């Protein structure tokens, strides 16, 4: 049980934090609060590429840094802390799967991810389908049909990962988002993140892997969203500690009311638990161990902690929490989006319950 943060890990966090805090202020984010401008900061994307961070988990053969998934999560956590307007999560997670399951033909796209030329996306959610592991989008003879909901950065993406079913077996596929048979309808998401509803009418799709590959990919994608919320939740908490320490009512800082301090302390406990169970999932995934339960635990915590921290920090700010000239309100949007993305708390608890019913009784064997 070694929780030590290595020098390497610290360096990555510092580098990511520096670039992101230099480039993403609440004023910078303001321009994306309407639908007029796509939430994509190309200059920041370029800087992340230049620093090498986009290739953090891509092997050196493709020009990357050659670190693992855990290191990538450090970058993602920093993205969550500032709500970075760049598609790090879909791009880097899709690249990870392509690297794992793709072939020689895919090295160009990986090199393009590292250099910042390519944005990648993943089509996972479906409308009226409560199970991300049981898609209805279908592949037959190398052609994909069906519809996917909430596909991030579809219009910018150069390549698209798709979770689909073929002959009754779930699999992971690579499709060309620019193909004319793939039609996207732009959505208006709660966070203003660009997403599309995409229909596929015989889109060419190449198989990357079977159900095990889907699990491999989804467990990492889910955990990455949790890492994003670790950063976002801690930021909400810090903003609240600072604001309540400065804000005075009845002649004293409102933080000196025990009711205020205790509600903030509850958020701290949630943030601490979230960080630790996410670290557990990351560590298991990095070690290639069975992480199914750890991922269910992490995402169920992610939903609970994000919801509670978001609503409590809103409350502790009074009116300032909802003021669009202050930064907290945007975190409320991401808390909700990531709570529901890739399985809600209840969804993951049900999965956990199924595992228990199948005999997983022991926390440490």
């Amino acid at each position, binding site marked *: 049980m070694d929780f030590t*943060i290595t020098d390497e890990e610290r360096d990555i966090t510092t580098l990511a934090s520096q670039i992101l805090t230099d480039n993403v202020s609440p004023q910078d984010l303001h321009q994306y609060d309407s639908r007029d401008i796509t939430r994509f900061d190309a200059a920041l994307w370029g800087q992340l590429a230049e620093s090498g961070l986009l290739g953090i988990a891509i092997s050196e053969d493709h020009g990357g840094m050659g670190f693992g998934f855990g290191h990538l999560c450090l970058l993602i956590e920093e993205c969550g802390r500032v709500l970075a307007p760049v598609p790090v999560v879909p791009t880097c997670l899709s690249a990870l799967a392509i690297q794992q399951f793709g072939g020689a033909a895919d090295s160009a796209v990986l090199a393009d991810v590292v250099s910042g030329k390519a944005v990648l996306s993943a089509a996972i959610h479906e409308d009226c389908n409560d199970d991300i592991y049981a898609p209805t989008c279908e592949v037959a003879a190398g052609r994909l049909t069906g519809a996917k909901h909430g596909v991030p950065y579809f219009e910018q993406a150069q390549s698209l990962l798709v979770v689909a079913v073929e002959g009754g077996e779930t699999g992971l596929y690579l499709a060309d988002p620019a193909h004319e048979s793939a039609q996207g309808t732009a959505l208006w998401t709660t966070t203003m993140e660009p997403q599309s509803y995409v229909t596929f009418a015989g889109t060419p799709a190449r198989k990357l892997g079977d159900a095990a590959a889907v699990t491999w990919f989804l467990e990492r994608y889910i955990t990455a969203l949790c890492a994003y919320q670790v950063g976002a939740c801690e930021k909400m908490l810090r903003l609240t500690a600072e604001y309540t320490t400065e804000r005075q009512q009845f002649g004293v800082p409102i933080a000196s009311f025990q009711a205020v301090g205790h509600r903030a302390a509850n958020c701290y406990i949630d943030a601490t*638990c979230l960080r630790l*169970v996410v670290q557990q999932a990351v560590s298991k995934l990095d070690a290639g161990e069975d992480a199914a339960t750890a991922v269910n635990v992490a995402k169920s915590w992610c939903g609970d902690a994000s919801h509670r921290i978001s609503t409590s920090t809103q409350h502790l700010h009074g009116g300032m929490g909802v003021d669009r000239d202050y930064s907290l309100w945007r975190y409320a949007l991401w808390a909700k989006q990531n709570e529901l993305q890739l399985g809600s708390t209840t969804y993951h608890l049900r999965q956990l319950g199924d595992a228990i019913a199948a005999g997983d009784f022991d926390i440490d064997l």
Partner: protein
Amino acid sequence: MKLAFTQEQEQLRRDIRAYMQELMTDELRAELHQDFKGEGGGPLWKECMRKLGRDGWIGLGWPKEYGGMEKGPMEQYIFFAEVAKAGFPFPFLTSESVGPALASFGDEDLKNEVIPKILSGATNICIGYSEPGAGTDLASLKTRAVKGDDGYYTINGQKMWTSLAEFADYIWLAARTGDEEKLGKHGSISMFLIPMDTPGISITPVYTLGSVRTNATYLQDVRVHESRLVGAENAGWKVIMSQLNRERLALVSHGPSTAFLRKVCEYAADTTLPNGERLLDQDWVKMNLAKARQGFEAIRMICYKQAYEIAKTGNLDMAEASSAKIFGSEFLVEATRGLMEVLGYASTMHMGSQHNVLGGEMERMYRTLSILTFGGGTNEIQRDIISIFGLSMPRPMRA
């Protein structure tokens, strides 16, 4: 960061588990299941303590110079958790909390007298902090020790909630020795380690909700030599704080909760409903079990994190340790509720009843949980600690 055990740690856990399973005989269980005997003190329990001492387990984390095994905090925590899973009432306060504080602050004679007895399982120490008027505000205690010219203190006062006093050999006692006006309420307290058979000490039992006996302890003109001071005169607060910090981790280990979860899972797997389905396959049952698991996994990680912090820095991380204490105690109450729902109405039947479920353990368990939220440093103070040290917020106002 690599959150897994070493092979040696895995082996240690298996060894402790096997050892404890052997130790927990049906006869011992029967002794512990008697009302007001659950915390030990009976003849079989005393025998087991001697055995644990002989086999070296009590000294697991103690330095070799005291005859200990000198294992690190992670191994000690593994031990806490496994012992708790087995359901053995190990007197952690004596060996893991008061003992180490005595080793840090006591003088040589006192250490030589008491520590070998602690490590051999031959002695028990009760804690005399709380008083009728001093609970959370411990530093307002009124028990007074007045020093005479002969090097003897005369102690008068009353302690409350002195657990285990009925079979303790010593009392770890906090008393006021200095002038509160001049030295402040924290700077005028001293710690003593006093044999319980010293004339003038008497106890009366206090029976509690959880079938746990505790005591009121009366001190009337108790004469104690200054060599029984632990640390310098009026420097007791530091000793108390060091002891309380160590207590916190042992209080909320994930051991008992995960052991109960396992038992409830097994029960639900073995129980068939009138329609022929397993209890375990009901959606609501799976949800209750999953919610318990969700929280227990976090408790486990937060405890391991604390063990890691102690190993690395020698100290707990204040705000995280308080988080462990609060979440560990409050979640256990909630999870137990959900687990009792799974066991059904029969889970309210006493250990001594016919037709109880899981031997009535849940019925006793729920009655013992409420003390965890205010004992060992009440959760309100823990939340204060988090807001001050974890979030750098100003101290809450006090009247």
